[in-house]
């Protein structure tokens, strides 16, 4: 659905990203791994329309595209769920679900909300993905971090996302809560959505990923499909690869 060839991004004289080749296919999870400053967020920003790329080509559905606004990306069904910009904690789950895209009974400004419909749909959509909230009316702040992330993802899916970009969805979560989110990522994939999963945790990536890209200092250092790479290799690449081996030599201590 998205095909990037030789994508690069410079901020003035600084090259944040160079020569990235990446494909996002429907029904697959593409994991983008990398340490802090590796260029992960720059890559997301290009795909979600926050910043245009400065070299290379990006094709969406085969057509060459340069995004100049997030709206353009959204209109093509590319939705991004940011780690912090997910929800309004004091508002009910269903209000959060429909925030910004509310269903109303008419077009005039004081038209009533279709509250019953929205509650039913929000509940159904969450259940479909295996999230059951005790009460769809509870403030979303009372849900766990993982569940909140899931609601944000479910919302993007419901509003027509074909490509879902998840920015470090498990970074702030414990093991159990990460499990909730990862299960949900798998569910979205099974629905035929192309998922881009940004993380610095190779274990999480390996659980759901079909394709792995490791970034380092703005360049790709690994590009492999699931069958051709092991978790150990992935972990090693993430941890620093050859550099780490050298470091291990240097810091070697007697057993």
């Amino acid at each position, binding site marked *: 659905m998205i095909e990037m060839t030789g994508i690069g991004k410079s901020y003035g004289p600084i090259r944040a990203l160079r020569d990235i080749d990446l494909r996002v296919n429907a029904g697959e999870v593409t994991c983008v791994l990398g340490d802090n400053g590796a260029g992960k967020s720059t890559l997301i920003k290009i795909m979600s329309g926050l910043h245009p790329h400065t070299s290379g080509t990006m094709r969406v559905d085969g057509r060459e595209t340069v995004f100049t606004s997030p709206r353009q990306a959204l209109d093509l069904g590319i939705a991004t769920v*940011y780690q*912090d*910009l*997910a*929800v*309004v*904690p*004091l*508002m009910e789950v269903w*209000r959060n679900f*429909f*925030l*910004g*895209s*509310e269903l*109303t009974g008419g077009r005039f*400004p*004081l*038209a*009533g*909300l279709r*509250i019953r419909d929205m509650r039913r749909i929000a509940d159904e959509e969450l259940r479909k993905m295996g999230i059951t909230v005790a009460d769809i009316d509870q*403030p979303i*702040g*009372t*849900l*766990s*971090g*993982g*569940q909140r992330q899931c609601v944000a993802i479910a*919302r993007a899916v419901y509003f027509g996302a074909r490509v879902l970009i998840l920015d470090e969805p498990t970074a702030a979560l*414990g093991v*159990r*809560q990460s499990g*909730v989110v990862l299960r949900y990522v798998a569910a979205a994939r099974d629905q035929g959505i192309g998922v881009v999963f940004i993380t610095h945790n190779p274990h999480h990536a390996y659980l759901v990923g079909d394709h792995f890209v490791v970034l380092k200092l703005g360049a790709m250092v690994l590009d492999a499909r699931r069958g051709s790479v092991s978790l150990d290799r992935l972990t090693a690449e993430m941890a620093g690869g050859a550099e780490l081996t050298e470091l291990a030599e240097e810091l070697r201590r007697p057993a």
Partner: protein
Amino acid sequence: MRPEVGALVAAAVIFVFFLAVAPAFRSADAFVTVLYQSSTIGIVAVAVGMLMIGGEFDLSAGVIVTSAGLVNSMFCWYFGINLWVGAILSLLFCLAVGFLNGYLVMRTGIPSFLITLGTFFVLQGANLGVTKLVTGSVSSTDVSRIDGFGSLGAIFASSFAIGPVVVWGTVVWWILFVAVATWILRRTRGGNWIYAVGGAADSARAVGVPVVRTKIGLFLAVSFLGWFVGMHNLYRFNTLQAGGGVGNEFLYIIAAVVGGTLLTGGFGNALGVAIGAFIFGMTSLGIVYAGWDPNWFRAFLGVMLLLAVLVNLYVRRLATREARA
């Protein structure tokens, strides 16, 4: 947990308290007087409460009430024009001030507390300065013999009798505005946006909520209802003291906070704010009916405010406590 629960309990306690200690409080007459007193604060407080739910303050809300009346009365008196022209002019003036407040807050990112503190002082000074220039004194001239006084008075300052008691129309307007605000907040898209921009403006923007438009709209609502009460004051009393209205901005904020509105935004409702205004009305008159020194009134309001803030803090903790996954 509903935001107005704490206020409702407090209102009941205060009501029973004054029934017990102030014999003059125990009449239908006293009750409608309390309602009238509450409505004069409550009408503007509805909008101030909505603005606070949207995460902003308006300290100019007290003096703009006086500005509204002064613009209307002095313009029409000076040029000898029908009062309707002045009323509409005054409305435009108030909306312009509200827009300016909102626009500056959104454009500069400076806290609304500071921006509206500025407009508060500008209006306060201008109220006195312009009135002195036009009339030579610090009160506006009597408008009761200018054309349009009758019809405007019927809208803004009429009263009607229910049995033996006379009720001011502002009480009905107040109830109406509370009802409309409740509808907007709970049942419309705009209401959803108000809670969202107050609760987490960045998240709201990220899902496509027009944050700037929503907040400017709230400032406009405050100045509109400020204008409304300004019209009431003018057509009820015929003349206005140019220094009036100062300090009322805090009464609106107290009514909102006592009614369960969070100072930090994102939580509260219109009914709670109305109960907050009712508590204000009961105590301001109850103290008089009980024969005490009215100076204690502000001390009492201060205590109410502190209690309300503590309750709000507790509610917020309760509402955002994370459940276990």
